[in-house]
């Protein structure tokens, strides 16, 4: 008897402890909305709830619409994924302030894929098959997106995504990319870059040196693919496009993901001394390479970076002056005239400042992310439903206004449209769009560098 009562006491205490510590499963479909995504009840932000005619937006009601996704909240891609997290929080907050989706409040659940594709696949399985989310938003990073897309396809979910770069691999008929680079980005992107430099006339580069990160997306853009794959043009890649356009390739060097010591690579770049340095890399690779080049006393005459971290590039000061990159959104005209652009700029800056980010201007990453949310909402509002077939059908048959401009998805191009990228350059310590002419900001144009 004594033993039994000890057992009961022990188990009761343990149960209470475990249950109290654990609490309810936060990913249950009917879990309460997080504070930061709950509909605003007024106060200082009341202006955001008021329509143009001065009437308050109707309060969303009914069961929340659950939107789930994963992001690299930890791991090597976390710094950039933070941009997508801020955009998602700001967009959902705005959506709820403006009456929700289909008149219902929206709840956004984000899980951490730890920058691992394997985790990403498992988390989307969880979101769809356990949490029963109504809609999903793609994660950040080519690997994670590619893995998650296969899961979305398995369950027939509409899959908007913002940063995947292996365009040839995405044959799912309900995926909707918002990094609007066209299906044959391995041809069109380098061609656009070299055409911009061609516009320099007598100062146009004659030789080019390639430095490429062994990352799937940058590899595809520099080296292309072997043979034709579906609707994709075979070959391509910046290396071949450069040769086709008459440039002399004087260096082709690859480096591993995670490389931070660029001194050996910098030595090779300096020795090659090309007119144009083409850095097929991402994040802070560019600034690290520039720092190593500076240690050798070498400044590239013209230099292009595939996907740089914009803040650190600006912070590099004189070292980065004249650097170019591609962009699909910048916080000034002509982009500010696009649908929702000013809202993105205002809200993103506020969110980024609150998070303590050093660079608080929205650009390509934030633009693609905001556009992905716009596409998802447009599809749902367009069909007035949560049926994935109907949402996809609506998106494929209607133009969609976004912060990047108007999207028109083409089913025969694996849901890609035109390449709408422009070329930007660091001039006088700031990023400015310089090519093509009709998109250039403040009458700016590409400037040739003098280098050493």
């Amino acid at each position, binding site marked *: 008897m004594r033993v039994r009562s000890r057992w009961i006491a022990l188990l009761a205490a*343990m149960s209470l402890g475990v249950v109290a510590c654990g609490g309810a499963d936060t990913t249950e479909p009917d879990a309460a909305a997080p504070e930061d995504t709950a509909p605003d009840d007024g106060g200082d932000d009341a202006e955001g709830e008021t329509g143009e005619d001065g009437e308050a937006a109707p309060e969303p009601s009914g069961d929340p619409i659950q939107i789930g996704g994963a992001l690299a909240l930890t791991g090597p891609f976390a710094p950039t994924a933070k941009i997508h997290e801020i955009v998602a929080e700001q967009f959902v907050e705005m959506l709820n302030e403006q009456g929700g989706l289909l008149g219902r409040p929206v709840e956004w659940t984000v899980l951490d894929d*730890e920058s691992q594709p394997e985790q990403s*696949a498992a988390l989307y399985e969880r979101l769809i098959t356990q949490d029963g989310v109504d809609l999903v938003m793609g994660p950040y990073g080519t690997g994670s997106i590619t893995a998650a897309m296969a899961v979305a396809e398995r369950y027939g979910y509409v899959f908007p995504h913002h940063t995947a770069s292996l365009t040839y691999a995405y044959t799912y008929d309900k995926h909707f990319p918002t990094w609007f680079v066209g299906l044959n980005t391995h041809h069109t992107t380098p061609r656009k870059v070299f055409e911009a430099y061609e516009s320099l006339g007598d100062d146009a580069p004659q030789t080019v040196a390639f430095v490429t990160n062994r990352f799937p997306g940058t*590899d595809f853009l520099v080296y292309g693919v072997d043979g034709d794959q579906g609707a994709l043009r075979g070959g391509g890649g910046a290396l071949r496009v450069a040769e086709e356009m008459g440039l002399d390739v004087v260096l082709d060097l690859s480096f591993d993901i995670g490389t931070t010591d660029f001194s050996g690579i910098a030595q090779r770049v300096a020795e090659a001394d090309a007119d144009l340095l083409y850095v097929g890399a991402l994040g802070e690779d560019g600034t690290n390479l520039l720092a190593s080049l500076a240690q050798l006393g070498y400044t590239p005459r013209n230099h292009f970076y595939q996907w740089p971290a914009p803040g650190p590039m600006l912070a590099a000061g004189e070292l980065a002056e004249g650097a170019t990159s591609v962009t699909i959104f910048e916080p000034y005209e002509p982009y500010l005239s696009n649908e929702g652009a000013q809202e993105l700029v205002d809200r993103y800056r506020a969110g980024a400042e609150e998070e303590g980010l050093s660079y608080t201007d929205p650009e390509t990453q934030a633009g693609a992310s905001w556009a992905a949310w716009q596409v998802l909402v447009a599809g749902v509002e367009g069909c007035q439903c949560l049926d994935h077939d109907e949402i996809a059908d609506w998106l494929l048959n209607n133009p969609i206004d976004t912060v990047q401009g108007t999207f028109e998805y083409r089913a025969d191009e694996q849901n890609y449209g035109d390449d709408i990228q422009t070329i930007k350059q660091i001039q006088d310590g700031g990023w400015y769009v310089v090519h093509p002419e009709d998109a250039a900001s403040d009458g700016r144009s590409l400037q040739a560098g003098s280098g050493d």
Partner: protein
Amino acid sequence: MSSRHPLRPQVLAAWALVALLLAAIPTLQGIFDFPLYNLIFLYLVFFWVAQATSWNLFSGYSGYFSFGQGAFFGAGMYTTAILGARHGWSLLPTLPIAALVAGTIALATAFLVFRLRRLSGEIFALFTLVVALGIGALSNNWTAIDGGRGIPLGQLDYPDWLGSTTQMLYYVGLLIALVAVFIAYLIQHNRFGAGLFAIRDDEKVAEAIGVPTLRYKVGVFALNGVIAGISGGLHAQQVNFISPGSTFSLRVPVFVILMSVVGGRRHWFGPVLGAVLIYTVTDRMSGAGYAELSQIVLALVLITATLFLRGGISTRLLERPVPPVVALVAVTAISALLTDSTAITVFAYGLVAALVVLFLPARVVPGTGSGRRRRPPGGAAEPVLGRDEDADVAPQESGR
């Protein structure tokens, strides 16, 4: 057949019953319509059980600490990805090839390292790590494998009778895990296992009494590679995008070591326990937004288990099985009644409760009497070459 024979009818019947029960779950899911994620979750548990068991067969039983798991797992993944995505093979035929490729890598590594006696102890562990990193670097730079591009897998073909992709992954993952664990069970209970335990206890003594140590080590290392490779091959379909950076990271080696050490390395059931516990807790914490915290918790569990559960969970569970099992059942049931959580979440609560009970000293756990000690796992069924260790005495490490 003696009453202690590992393949006695009662044992075989128990294995068959477990296999049948687990195989019936997809059908039950269809009938009772419980969340499909439960199948996916179980597939992932099977994956980790197979990986941890394969590591433990070599490193746990023989005492040689290997970091080569990533190489075998990655070789399996890439074999399936290359054959499936580039050459149009259907999924199932790629799996034996994945096993063969990984097994061959293991065999080649074993022949090299075990013939060089200076590659022992920490050097052996470092060497296996170098092999894994080297294969990762090779795949990252050689376009015939990957070249840094990554391989999107898409949906590979498989026989229709295996059902949906989730069901197929479940059935094949279950089969691989069951076979791996059954092999570990058989090895533990036969002469081969006794030889491996002898190598672990003292290799020179083992050699002196006639254990063919080289043959045993090479054989079990190759088996480690075969199981890791076939399991990795199947997992490629689950991951869908294979890239060197994520495939050959330290995640898999670290997790299998953690699972085996926490679960117990001297018993076939140790890695199974470790995999179920650690994957369940990790999955629940990640899903609740505590992915980073889960890593800290796992580190604490590892430290605590190393300090207070010598021999791992399986040892303590064999010593006093009733209190943790009662805690598991009771807390799971109470959580199910009091909370609105999913089945996996309430099971996780139960597991944590059972773990706490396992960690408690015998004197404060009701029903354990004076904490009667049993023989340790690994030596429980059959004394290893005459040795019989006390469970609370740390298994002798030979430093390999």
